[in-house]
């Protein structure tokens, strides 16, 4: 958990409680008095030690009978976001989906919405909020899923974080199937397997249960869910009602949760998901320097059929068939393979990148058919991401509203963080595109349209090398025939897989 914490930084003032001090003259005087008090009692510091890894940090303290700890420092150490509400005079800390609200002078705090003893009222001093030791060992420990001990004699705070808790289990119906959501207190390793078509087992390694959790009422494809503590963790068994075609399992952060989706649709053996255990620390694919996991993205799906061939072939069907072939080819080469969709379902573009990021995939390959309003156009190409031109985002163009009759067009925000993820990987994506392109050119007798760059939405959010393969033009009658041929798709899949394997060798220096 603690590796998530942001580095310890001192940020006095914003977003501390300086805002309310501007709200009235009384506050101004209070400030003056408090500043005087603060100056009279010089600040001290306590050392905070994490027993799990020996890491330590410094927290500023002040004396007022007993020791009081600076909330800004504590928030930084525990990786929490602080928010000061000037209207209500409350400070809220949020981290890993949990929420702790405290009010200077109030002996109670709200933890995830319920009122608990603060262990002594927080105080406002020198424009900062300070909390007593009782706050650390009480609500803060619960907020951080840790045991906290304060040793006043040597001025240290000892933190021992507890194993993650499986906090909740909820079942809900979704467009693409039935979702079972396991709420977690932090990141952990998990594995999923389906011993029979009638059940899916999820094992949370090293986790613990606070209360017994069970869902016995059936909903959708779920007949029942039971959750029990076993020797080395927590075991959940999902009893599956008939009709489910497969499942996907993804670990999300903020808050941490594992979502299992039992999908309707094609009657196929559930794919093994053992490789999808936990989120690797740091940039995916960089931790071990390896290229192991490939996320295949079959373009379009559901109501979005993509392009249509003159004989009626649908792009969404071609991309899914090709994805199945590519999955087989890559597995034979020892890759873990996942797909953003494994049935004829609609998946929004941003979500496809999100799925790849959550699975910590090392490579993202979006499969597409090209199309053009002329039967003459044809050929294949491999594309990688290029950000929108500098004059298209930010700057003067983003400054104001433009009125179109009654419609107000909002200004263009600076590209969101999420949208910029791919920018760090463009060089690698270009290398991957070239390797796949070379392999396809060698193996296939399609007209070569080269490697291209573009502001592809599906690639923009991918935090890994990502490419988009346009296999052939479905609008060309000849190429439509080829795309309908499983033998051709197998050749395409094999050439893409060879390209990905060549990229792996290059990265791993093999």
């Amino acid at each position, binding site marked *: 958990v603690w590796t998530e914490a942001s580095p310890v930084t001192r940020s006095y003032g914003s977003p501390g409680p300086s805002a309310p001090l501007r709200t009235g003259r009384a506050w101004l005087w209070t400030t003056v008095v408090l500043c005087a008090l603060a100056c009279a009692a010089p600040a001290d510091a306590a050392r905070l030690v994490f027993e799990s890894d020996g890491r330590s940090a410094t927290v500023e303290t002040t004396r007022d009978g007993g020791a009081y700890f600076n909330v800004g420092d504590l928030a930084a150490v525990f990786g929490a976001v602080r928010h000061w509400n000037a209207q209500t005079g409350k400070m809220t800390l949020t981290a890993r989906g949990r929420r702790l609200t405290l009010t200077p002078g109030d002996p109670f705090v709200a933890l995830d919405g319920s009122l608990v003893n603060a262990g002594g009222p927080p105080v406002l001093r020198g424009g900062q909020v300070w909390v007593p030791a009782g706050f650390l060992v009480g609500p803060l420990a619960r907020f951080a899923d840790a045991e906290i001990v304060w040793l006043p004699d040597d001025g240290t705070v000892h933190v021992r974080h507890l194993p993650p808790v499986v906090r909740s289990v909820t079942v809900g119906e979704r467009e693409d199937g039935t979702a079972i959501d396991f709420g977690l207190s932090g990141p952990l390793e998990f594995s999923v397997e389906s011993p029979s078509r009638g059940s899916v087992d999820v094992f949370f390694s090293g986790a613990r249960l606070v209360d017994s959790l069970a869902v016995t009422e059936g909903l959708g494809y779920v007949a029942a869910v039971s959750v029990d503590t076993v020797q080395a963790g927590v075991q959940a068994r999902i009893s599956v009602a008939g009709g489910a075609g497969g499942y996907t399992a993804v670990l999300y952060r903020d808050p941490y949760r594992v979502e299992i989706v039992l999908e309707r649709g094609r009657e196929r053996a559930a794919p093994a998901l053992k490789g999808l255990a936990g989120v690797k620390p740091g940039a995916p694919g960089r931790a071990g320097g390896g290229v192991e996991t490939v996320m295949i993205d079959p373009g379009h799906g559901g109501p979005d059929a*993509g392009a*249509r061939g003159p004989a009626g072939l649908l792009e969404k069907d071609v991309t899914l068939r090709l994805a199945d072939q590519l999955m087989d080819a890559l597995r034979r080469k020892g890759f873990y393979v996942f797909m953003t969709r494994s049935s004829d379902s609609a998946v929004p573009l941003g979500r496809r990148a999100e799925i790849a990021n959550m699975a910590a995939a090392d490579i993202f390959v979006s499969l597409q058919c090209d199309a*053009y309003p002329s039967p003459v*156009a044809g050929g294949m190409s491999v594309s990688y991401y290029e950000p929108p031109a500098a004059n298209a985002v930010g700057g003067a163009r983003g400054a104001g509203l433009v009125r179109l009759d009654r419609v107000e067009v909002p200004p263009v925000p600076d590209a969101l963080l999420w949208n910029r993820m791919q920018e760090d990987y463009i060089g690698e994506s270009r290398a991957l595109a070239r390797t796949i392109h070379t392999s396809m050119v060698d193996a296939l007798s399609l007209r070569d349209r080269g490697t291209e760059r573009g502001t592809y*939405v599906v690639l923009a959010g991918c935090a890994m090398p990502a490419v988009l393969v346009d296999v052939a*033009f479905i609008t060309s009658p000849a190429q439509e025939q080829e795309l309908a041929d499983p033998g051709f798709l197998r050749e395409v899949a094999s050439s893409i897989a060879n390209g990905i394997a060549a990229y792996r060798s290059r990265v791993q220096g093999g």
Partner: protein
Amino acid sequence: VSLIRVKIVVILLVVVAGVLLFALRERRPEEALPEGGVLAEDVGPGVQTVVLVFGDRSASRLVEERREIVVPDDRSERARRILEALAEGPSESGAVRTLPEGTKVRKVVFDGTGGAYVDFSRELVDNHPGGSTGELFTIRSVVQTLARNFPDVETVRFLVEGKEIETIAGHIDASVPMSVEQYE
């Protein structure tokens, strides 16, 4: 006397209508211009030579077509008429339409700092035949047509029924203004 006046007015109306009809019919397609072809001659209201930018049949390059159309004085309305002509498709056989059938151009707005906003009808998205290349040529054709006829345009933002869109056909980011250089 009043009868003569009425006759004169009627004759004048017929003449004006005739001239307008003739001008509208007079579409003279020409072969694609060489690289860096001539900018549209801005002759103000009345008949103007405009440049429409389409795709070629093999989806390898843009082709330009010059037409003489009747355009109004108002700059926004002039741009709208030019894009409506673009939406009708090319008249020469070497070029391919880039806007889906039935697409209407509802409004064009210039923000005065190089930004153009084009509001299309639903058909732009609903009838789009798809494909990264098809989508790319739709964007390039609109952006370059505006840039050819209004040299001060630097970016073009696509809207559908007054709202911003994520993409036209599921690939290229259409939520940001399209730069004239990027979509050359």
